[in-house]
């Protein structure tokens, strides 16, 4: 794990901030939401992957700006809720706002380019996202949403594996400096 922690406050000024071509972020977010909705029509396996969460994490760690990260996460979460019918708007928004903020903060401190570190990050953020979601639903909706299950573990592994591939594809949309 040492390679993940290319860390330290003293190293922060050397961290590279990635830029994207115009419309890339908005287009990717909309595509992720559309695909998530589209895949949802084809059965349970589509629920294994949380595309909006992957996009939130990717742009958070790439932009490395906590403010833009939290707004992007919040917007993606609210849109995701808006496209669903069973959750009140804001449920995913809260979780993805915090994930976006933390992803930006983490991206400024550790190496997020290596596939293994990306896998670990996605895996952790997936469960962190689930914990926030469960807390929110327990507190506000009185639902007994689980914090951790075997199914969630499988989902997190599948999402992390898919995220490593997706992140590599999205890297191609970066503007070269």
């Amino acid at each position: 794990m040492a390679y993940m922690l290319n860390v330290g406050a003293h190293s922060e000024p050397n961290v590279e901030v990635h830029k994207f071509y115009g419309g890339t972020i908005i287009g990717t977010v909309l595509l992720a939401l559309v695909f998530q909705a589209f895949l949802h029509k084809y059965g349970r396996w589509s629920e294994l992957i949380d595309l909006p969460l992957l996009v939130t994490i990717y742009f958070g760690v790439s932009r490395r700006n906590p403010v833009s990260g939290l707004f992007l996460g919040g917007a993606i979460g609210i849109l995701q809720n808006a496209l669903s019918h069973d959750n009140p708007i804001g449920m995913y928004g809260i979780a993805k706002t915090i994930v976006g903020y933390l992803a930006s903060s983490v991206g400024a401190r550790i190496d997020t380019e290596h596939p293994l570190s990306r896998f670990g990050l996605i895996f952790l953020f997936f469960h962190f996202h689930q914990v926030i979601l469960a807390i929110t639903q327990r507190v506000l909706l009185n639902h007994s949403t689980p914090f951790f299950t075997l199914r969630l573990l499988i989902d997190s592994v599948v999402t992390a594996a898919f995220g490593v591939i997706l992140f590599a594809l999205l890297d191609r949309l970066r503007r070269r400096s």
Partner: protein
Amino acid sequence: MIDAFSRHRPLALLATVVLAQVLLLAFQIKRENNVRLIRYWAVELMTPLERAGTWTFSHIGGVWSGYVGLRNTRAENERLRNDVNTLRLRNRELESQSAEAHRLATLLNFREAHLEAPMLAAQVIGASADPTSHTLFINRGERDHVRRNMGVITPDGVVGKIVEVFPSTAQVLLINDKDSGVGALFASSRTHGVVKGSGDPEPHMEYVINEEKLQSGDALVTSGEDRIFPKDLLIGNVDEAKPGNPFQVISVRPAARLDRLEDVIVLLTQQELVPKKSEEASGAGEATPAQTSAQVATPPTTSRSSGVVTDPNKFKPAATPVQAVAPLNKTPGAKSPAPRR
């Protein structure tokens, strides 16, 4: 504050955005009874504050009304205590007047039942200083034509006789005094004897042979042989009878309450007292409906209220019948029943 906000701007923004979304959620989510969560929270947030405010204001009000506002209470309390004492005194006066009116009404009924017999109402004004002497003083004397050996009765029964007469008072020897003797007979068997005082509260019937069958409660009436009391005035009832030598020892429970006498009747004659019939009595005395019903309800064979037994065979001790209050015929020197001040 602003400096701190600038330093932690991303964190503050995060908190703001999350809070905004929580509020957005609270606006959408509905709890029990279709109440929105934001309203629920608002109520939960405001209720303790309102409760605290109410508590504070009520305690401030309590302090004001319990302490500051009580500065005149001491004087008011004193005034109310005085009022209570005055009213208690007044109540006792009224109770006393009510009892006096009741006694006088009883006397009046008795008087109306024996209009043909001269008699005089009197008040007991004193008693003997000697505890062994059962005598008392009444407020009638020589000026009222009271003479020695006149009988003294109450509507309940025989009290005693006049033994000393003074210009405005007289002394009455009660039937339980050791020097007293009243000619008596049993109302049921008509067996004669003498009721004599013994110094005890209860007098004794003497000269009754042991073969005489007696029961507790048997009525004793005057026989008229002593030439003081008219015949058939109730003296009392047999309390206890024991065989003796040569005569039975019979203790008598006096019909008149000799220890609580306040108003009595002096018989100015030895003429036999025959109670008037109820119709005559009610007609003569303009009795109230209550009085009339009481008199009608009284069996014609007995006249407990008049103290005279007309059919002794059927006499049994009974509770005093209802006495209606009627205007009192005032006699010279009689105390006025007007309220005392």
